[in-house]
């Protein structure tokens, strides 16, 4: 299993579909901290799954001016349905074609399974990774690590 990118590394740029006709590039968010949350798949059979949880915590992330991006290998249509179903208020990016390309760059792709790790990255306003964490796929990592990393970002 490749290791995920570690603090101090320049965050690899990417440009991924966020809706069927719109793309979002990491570089567009330069100037604000960014939280990247790679996750295995859109629909999982629990309430309060990782994305639904982050959705509730969004106001806390915003206090640090941080943008949250969810990334999985699911396609835009699937993301659209998931967003509607969970009332998500942040973008989900489709790492769909070439599949998992962005996740691979971050060391967050599970080749044996064909989907993303549950991996978190906090990137500072200049585009450098300041914190990263990989959780076992079955364990929702919560948000305590993210909040602590945001708190420790240089102002």
């Amino acid at each position, binding site marked *: 299993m490749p290791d995920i990118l570690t603090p101090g590394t320049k965050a690899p740029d990417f440009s991924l579909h966020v809706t069927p006709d719109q793309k979002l590039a990491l570089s567009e968010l330069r100037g604000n901290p960014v939280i990247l949350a790679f996750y295995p798949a859109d629909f999982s059979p629990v*309430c309060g799954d990782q994305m*639904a949880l982050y959705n509730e915590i969004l106001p*806390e992330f915003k206090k640090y001016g941080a943008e949250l991006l969810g990334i999985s290998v699911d396609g835009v249509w699937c993301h659209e349905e998931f967003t509607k179903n969970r009332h998500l208020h942040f973008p989900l990016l489709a790492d769909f074609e070439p599949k998992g390309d962005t996740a691979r760059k971050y060391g967050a792709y599970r080749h044996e399974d064909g989907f993303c790790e549950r991996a978190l990255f906090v990137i500072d306003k200049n585009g450098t990774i300041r914190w990263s964490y990989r959780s076992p796929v079955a364990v929702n990592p919560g948000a*305590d690590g993210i909040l602590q990393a945001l708190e420790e970002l240089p102002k």
Partner: protein
Amino acid sequence: MSKLKVPVTSDDHIQGDKRAPITLIEYGDYECPHCGHAYPIVKRVQKHFGDRLMFIFRNFPLREIHPNAENAAEAAEFAAAHERFWEMHDKIFENQSDLSLPMLLELAKTLRLSVPDLRNALTARQYASRVRDDFLGGVRSGVNGTPTFFINGDRHDGPFEFEDLVAALEARAE
């Protein structure tokens, strides 16, 4: 492993002996079916351990997916202000399929709490900050869904059927 960041204080809703060797904290959402499932299990667990266990319930309403969860949590806090927290907590879980405003008011009535006062408290969001404090403390502690349990301050990652919880609690009691 995620650790509880907000210690138990007298502001908490506590059942059992405060000097008990085992502390079980649940971060829960009244409208979450998994919390509804856990409700009778926790009761059995409490009975099983007796005065060896202290149980604490804290609010973690997932408002985007459970539209009545926040109101239910605030209604329970209203009851707490009138020393009736646990009765309201139990009634809410026992009526989980309908947590509309009329039902919450009805539950208050059966506990002989003032219906107009509860209505006003909910309209004024009088207990919202209390619920929010619980929620944020939970987030800081690594609550990752509902219910999330902490056993003597450590997050319990794993199933929460009766046998699972008893085993996890026993392991910490020694």
